[in-house]
């Protein structure tokens, strides 16, 4: 591994191409590794086997940057996380990949008790600029141990930032911000989104953490959701528009820090709030969002907020049952009709 040196100044963003979500992530890694020699990636099968992880996010990186900066690891999530934390404290900027978020339970000690606490416990003298990448979500029949959405675990821990991009552009822009952040960031991708395409600015395109995106403008109800729920809400909004209901869709993009102001501004306009995530409804981030809105903008609410979330059951592998356990566009539409009734 090369000695960390100072990064080059960012190049300007120029032009826009259509890329997949996975290609956009790959571009962010590649460009940032070119710019900043302190950045390296590590994880199971990120280098040699399969040519860049099971979804190809690190594809081609080992050829360009070599095995010192693109490192295959043993199958030990605790080791991946702990090594990344140590390297970050020592001055590197590691991007550690976990094959499935479901496996991160094995890595919670270094993430929760070390990465999230070190800067605080050393009085700000130590920094932990690490990114923990993983993919979550269901929709591929990967069964109960490979289909969960566990963002709420990390949102619960002070000291961790949590990022959940829903588009290729945001995937690139947010990953650049995550790598450049001096604090540990849990960067959660969605396995179904890897193949989705969208316009992505070329060059140094950065999306700041903590700034929501309005994915659709409407005045009758506000939907706040992440990952696939943004796309399902857009589909629901088309159906609702035919009924005269204009749905506003807010993609918070990062859950910690959370752009509460954007959500409240929308709810002040619409008076109605629906939140959605694939994660289990119970103690999900949706409950947190509703609680924050109710506390800060109680008098803006014209109807009780509604959650559209994953059922509180292990995610089934059978396609029909899996679909039934997940929140769908029709569920969002029904919830919106309920709050505007």
């Amino acid at each position: 591994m090369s000695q960390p040196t100072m990064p080059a100044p960012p190049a300007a963003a120029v032009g826009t191409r259509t890329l997949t979500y996975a290609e956009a992530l790959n571009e962010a890694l590649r460009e940032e590794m070119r710019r900043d020699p302190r950045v390296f990636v590590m994880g199971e099968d990120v280098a040699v086997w399969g040519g860049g992880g099971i979804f190809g996010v690190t594809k081609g990186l080992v050829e360009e940057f070599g095995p010192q900066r693109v490192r295959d690891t043993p199958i030990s999530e605790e080791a991946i996380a702990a090594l990344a934390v140590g390297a970050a404290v020592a001055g590197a900027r590691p991007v550690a990949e976990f094959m499935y978020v479901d496996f991160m339970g094995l890595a919670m000690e270094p993430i929760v008790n070390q990465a999230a606490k070190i800067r605080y416990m050393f009085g700000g003298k130590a920094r932990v600029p690490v990114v923990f990448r993983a993919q979550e979500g269901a929709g591929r029949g990967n069964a109960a141990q490979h289909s969960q959405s566990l963002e709420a675990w990390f949102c619960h821990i002070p000291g961790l930032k949590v990022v959940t991009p829903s588009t290729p552009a945001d995937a690139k822009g947010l990953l650049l911000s995550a790598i450049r952040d001096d604090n540990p960031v849990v960067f959660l991708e969605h396995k179904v989104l890897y193949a989705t395409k969208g316009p992505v600015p070329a060059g140094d395109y950065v999306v700041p953490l903590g700034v929501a995106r309005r994915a659709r403008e409407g005045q009758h109800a506000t939907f706040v959701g992440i990952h696939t729920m943004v796309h399902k809400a857009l589909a629901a909004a088309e159906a609702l528009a035919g009924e005269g209901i204009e749905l506003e869709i807010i993609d918070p993009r990062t859950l910690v820090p959370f752009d509460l102001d954007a959500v409240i501004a929308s709810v002040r306009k619409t008076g109605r709030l629906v939140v959605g995530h694939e994660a289990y409804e119970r103690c999900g981030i949706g409950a947190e969002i509703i609680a924050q809105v109710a506390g800060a903008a109680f008098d803006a609410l014209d109807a009780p907020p509604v959650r559209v979330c994953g059922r509180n059951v292990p995610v089934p592998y059978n396609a029909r049952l899996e679909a039934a356990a997940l929140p769908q566009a029709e569920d969002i539409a029904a919830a919106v009709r309920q709050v505007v009734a």
Partner: protein
Amino acid sequence: MATEVVLPRLGLTQEEGTILRWLKPEGSRVGKGEPLFEVMTDKATLEVEAPASGVVLKILVAEGGTVPVATPIALIGEPGDAVTDVHAPAPPPPSGGPVPTEAAGVAGAAVAGEAPRGRAPEGRIRISPRARAMAESQRIDVRTLVGTGPDGRIIERDVQQAVAARAAGAVQPAGVDSTAASAAPQPASASPRTVSAPPPRQIPAHAAAHMRGIIARRMLESLQTTAQLTLTTEVDMEETVRLRNEVGPELERREGVHVTYTDLIVRAAAVALREHQAINARWEGEGVHRLPEIHIGVAVALEEGLVVPVVRHADRASIAQISAAIRDLSERARGMRLRPDEMAGHTFTVTNLGMFDVDAFTPVLNLPEAAMLGVGRLHRRPVAAGDRAEIHTTMVLSLTFDHRVVDGAPAAQFLQRLKHILEHPYLLLLP
């Protein structure tokens, strides 16, 4: 130790209230927080919850009674609790001796101040936070609003509607056309109301909105909580027309009253009700409660809505007395000068749409009554007289009744008796 139930102050300007209905009769058990009685204030009709659990030991103010705020109106306790010394609205001064009126007033106020005991409606109105905030900023009394959201919740659009209604009321001059107002001056043949009445007073828009809210709630409650249906029958009014033509001028000369068909029909209904007590009843909890007295409400249309003043003991009143009472009540109703107790205690209601050429209709029960009579137009048409056709004056009566309280056959018999009386109207002259 029995708990005193006092009349709560439900609005800033409220000085007194009228008990419309005791929802728990004396002797029945009530749980804290259960609706105990219905009170009419200057603004609205509200249900008030019991302040304590126990048995309703004594009701101190009967239905229809109007008392000042903070007056004890009932006692809740356990059987055996003392029920004496409860009529005093204020406690005696500690020093004994004569009670200065001012001190009594202060004591009464203190009771009202310390006691949110009966006060419940304000905290129990189903309203969204957004609607409440908007109502506050727009100075709309939320108790007057009717919720159209899920489960009757008041939501933003209800407040917006009230604001719009108020704005519309503020910009429109008095005397804007409305069915009731335009109907007031009747052709002499169609309407008996040729006596000059005081001009209708323009009611402030917010009061109109209050009234609309009360009407909306009560009409919906009537249709949603009873099993009502309507029977119709045609009455040959030839004899009643003759009676009115012959007796009317006499009564006008001797008693100064102008007898209308409504007066005669109210009298006929009262006589028939005396004979058909099953109709003069109401559903109370789990059973039918027949009412010993006959008080007939007469629906009066106003520009802003509808009120139903009550002719008390109509079965014991003569045609002249009924006529005088109805004229007095309806004139004061149009001026919004009725007292709350003059609209309470009805056991049966008569409503007349004949002046609008309506033949028959389905009146909506005026709760808590079990029956209501709708009067159609008088008109001349061919009827069979033996094997010949003759032109007679006829009228259709529409009787709505609550099938929980009375079955179809007895309701039909009552209607049949009413028809008989109007076709043989000298029966109206019997005491």
